């Protein structure tokens, strides 16, 4: 397993008030994203545990792109990855951000 961690400044605080959300399943080619509202309003952190070694540059690019597009201020993302492709990662991160901003259910 390889662990990676990225910290970014976000332009805005993520909307909503849910404390956490989770999406995805840890299986081959897929990942789970747990998102928690734990950080100061304009900060964002993404922690990754992945079974695919040596893809740090790709993760960094996908995470930076996600933060720029969605501005998930105040959120900490924790990922368990089963070797998902970058497009799947981007989708799950967006789903997680959307879920935690949704009305409570």
């Amino acid at each position: 397993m390889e662990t990676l961690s990225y910290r970014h400044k976000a332009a805005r605080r993520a909307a909503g008030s849910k404390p956490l959300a989770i999406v995805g399943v840890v299986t081959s080619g897929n990942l789970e994203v747990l998102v928690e509202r734990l950080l100061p309003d304009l900060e964002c952190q993404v922690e990754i545990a992945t079974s695919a070694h040596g893809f740090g540059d790709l993760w960094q690019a996908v995470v930076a792109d996600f933060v720029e597009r969605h501005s998930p201020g105040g959120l900490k993302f924790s990922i368990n990855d089963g070797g998902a492709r970058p497009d799947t990662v981007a989708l799950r991160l967006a789903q997680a951000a959307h879920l935690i901003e949704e009305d409570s259910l």
Partner: protein
Amino acid sequence: MNADKIHALEAQAHEISWFEATARQRLRWFVDAGSFEEFLGPAAREMSPHLPDFNLPEAFDDGMIVGRAKLDSKPVLIAAQEGQFMGGAFGEVHGAKLTGLLRGARDAKGPHVVILFDTGGVRLQEANVGELAIAEIMRAVLEARAAGVKVVGLIGGRAGCFGGGSLVAACCSALAISEQGRIGISGPEVIETNRGVEEFDSKDRALVWRTMGGKHRRLLGGVELFVGASIQDFRDAARSLLAQAPSLNLDVLKAEQARLEDRLERFGSCADGLDVWKALGAKDPAVIPGMAADAFIHLADTIRRPRYDAR
């Protein structure tokens, strides 16, 4: 949550496939909208202590989601296995979460428990603790039932209900299964590997389904209800089983023994599911695998009514 949203969720439950859904998706549409409250949720990060030794990825919930919820406004305890994570297999934490839920139900004498099975059995990487977990869960199911709690199992996930999972299912008060659901001690590949292709050809999907599949399990009497493919179908089945399942007592055990003896006597010489269905009185057994759910349910209720006096 507003009424429109509740209504929208209830409508979606009719359309969403149980088989395709993840465990969390099943839960979302299975219980009364918004009523699920998770114990030891993902934020607790109670993960497998063993998978890191194998350099394998963990899951925040270890593939087992437990909690309390409402079904028709009545409280239930609920457990759901994620069949896509490690094949829904029982590891130490995965099993302990279900054991704890059942012991809680036993001690409090309720509420009733619903288990959404989706498992290949014991997680090989955690073999010994996984086997122990199965033993603990079986004991906990029976203790909960002896305390008056009903434990209802639902089977229709991708991983089926195999190995130790099938033993736990057999201890339940009642079961419901869909067409895609499978129950077996050993899976098709395991049987073929150990006994050869002449004993069981795991590539023959029709054979697999008429040996382990939902329709056969229903006709053989191993499950009480056969259900359609949607989350709503499972919700309706759980509601019905919770109302009708027997409590555990000596009469029920004696009836179960008699039921199994009768089954062995009537079908013990059958070489194939088709022979069993014929012996049961199905006029044209060959058409059963292709029957739509409603037609099959009608046939099954005609040639073998579900019984609730044995378990």
